[in-house]
């Protein structure tokens, strides 16, 4: 299990200040959901946690180790303890479903083809996909791609899984399957999870804690019950999905 800590993280792209001093701690085994408008830097924050981006200021600590200071070798060792479900699934087009799921196992372990195939089948079964091993991503629907991405993320039995909008584009039933899976991984394997989502039903179901990001800072964090009852005007407007309120249209875009 991993402990994640973002300490005063700043990030700027050209003239746009995306993160402006994010402070957020995620305890081992905890599931934290990050919500916020599109373009407020939720996905950017996830990429900082795994070292795909480095902060301009501040630090991201994983088990008290500064990710930005790690050598490439150490960073790869750290990443093997992570899994990530991408917003766009990000499956490798030229590989089959089985090759996508088993790629990391093939690269980092000495397992035989049969063992890898067995693990792939098991992970695909977990996400409700069977009989698609030999298909290529172009033959799958958006929801199926997402679930293959999920299977790939958990193929190496990670200690922490990052989910970038895991239920976007899925039907309500499949969204619930994914939510149940996140809860199951978290409760049974004590995996630390960070979920970025706009789907509040999903956030309430999977999150031990929900943090709201607005204008590059965390403006609120609390349990699902606390966020439901908060008087914070920005949070209220967001969770009620109102166009009128203190959050101006396009402010986060």
């Amino acid at each position, binding site marked *: 299990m991993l402990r994640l800590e973002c300490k005063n993280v700043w990030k700027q792209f050209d003239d746009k200040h995306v993160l402006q001093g994010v402070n957020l701690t995620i305890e081992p085994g905890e599931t934290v959901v990050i919500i916020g408008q599109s373009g407020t830097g939720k996905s950017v924050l996830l*990429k900082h946690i*795994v070292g*795909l981006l480095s902060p301009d200021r501040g630090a991201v600590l994983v088990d008290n180790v500064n990710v930005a200071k790690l050598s*490439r070798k150490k960073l*790869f*060792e750290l*990443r*093997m303890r*992570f*899994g*990530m479900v*991408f*917003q*766009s699934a*990000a*499956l*490798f*087009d030229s590989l089959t479903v089985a090759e996508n799921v088993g*790629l*990391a196992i093939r*690269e*980092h372990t000495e397992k035989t083809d049969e063992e890898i195939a067995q693990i792939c089948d098991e992970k695909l079964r977990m996400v409700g996909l069977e009989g698609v091993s030999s298909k290529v991503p172009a033959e799958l629907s958006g929801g199926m791609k997402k679930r293959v*991405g999920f299977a*790939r993320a958990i193929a*190496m039995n990670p200690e922490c899984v990052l989910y970038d909008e895991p239920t976007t584009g899925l039907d309500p039933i499949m969204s619930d399957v994914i939510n149940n899976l996140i809860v199951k991984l978290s409760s049974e394997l004590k995996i630390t999870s960070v979920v970025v989502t706009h789907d509040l039903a999903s956030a309430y179901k999977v999150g031990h804690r929900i943090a709201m990001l607005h204008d590059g800072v965390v403006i609120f964090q609390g349990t699902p019950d606390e966020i439901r009852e908060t008087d914070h005007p920005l949070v209220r407007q967001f969770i009620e999905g109102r166009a009128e309120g203190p959050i101006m249209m396009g402010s986060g875009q």
Partner: protein
Amino acid sequence: MPTLRNTFRTVGRSIFNLLAVVGGTSLMLLGVIARLIELPRTSRQTFLQMQEIGLGSIPLVIITALFVGAVAAVQAAYQFQDYVPMIFLGTVVGKSVILELGPVLTALVVGGRVSASIAAELGTMKVTEQIDAMELLAIDPMRYLVMPRMVACVIMLPVLTIFADCLAIFGGMVVAKIAVGVSTSTFTEGLRMFFYVDDVISGLVKAATFGLIIGLMGCFNGFRTFGGAQGVGRATMQAVVSSCICILITNYFLASVLFRLIFYRGTT
């Protein structure tokens, strides 16, 4: 004043971009060299790329080489009229094909096809977060994606060039017989008269260098793609243009160095 400032800004930005490209390609090349020790781990990817680059380019090379050889024969015969014996037709076609036309034209046509294909594939992977996903799986994209493509280009360009050389000479020989009336035996006698293995080697050294340029430009432009479909299109175009320009410029310097080496060896 604002016009002058804008001019300085544009020039400054162009210089900065050029330095960034030179720096970026140099770092990528050094990165690949540093990872060559891991080549056996990616032998499957390298073999697949060799197949894609080599076999996939054969139809293009056949057409280009046959007609280049044919044109070389026709042009030389026209210039030889009444001044140079036709026995030298084979010599001229052979020399020009082996030293220049074979390596350069093969590199230009294969480069257009291959660097565009590499840049488009890697560029699409970049904008759809597939390269990020690979990083997340702790798989080095330089080792897994870049190195196999560059190694395949360096190996396959000389192979395609030998193939193109043979076809171009054959094309020249056929045209010499049909259109100019030079017999096959006269043509081959002329071809053999000044045939040096050093010429073939220098052509292959050029081809391998051009292969490196094609792979490097394709991978570099693919990896720095941004901005969706438009970005992929831009990267593809830049890969083709930059590889063609680099091939032509490098050709001059390689020709100068290699000819000097051959000439030096020939005179001592």
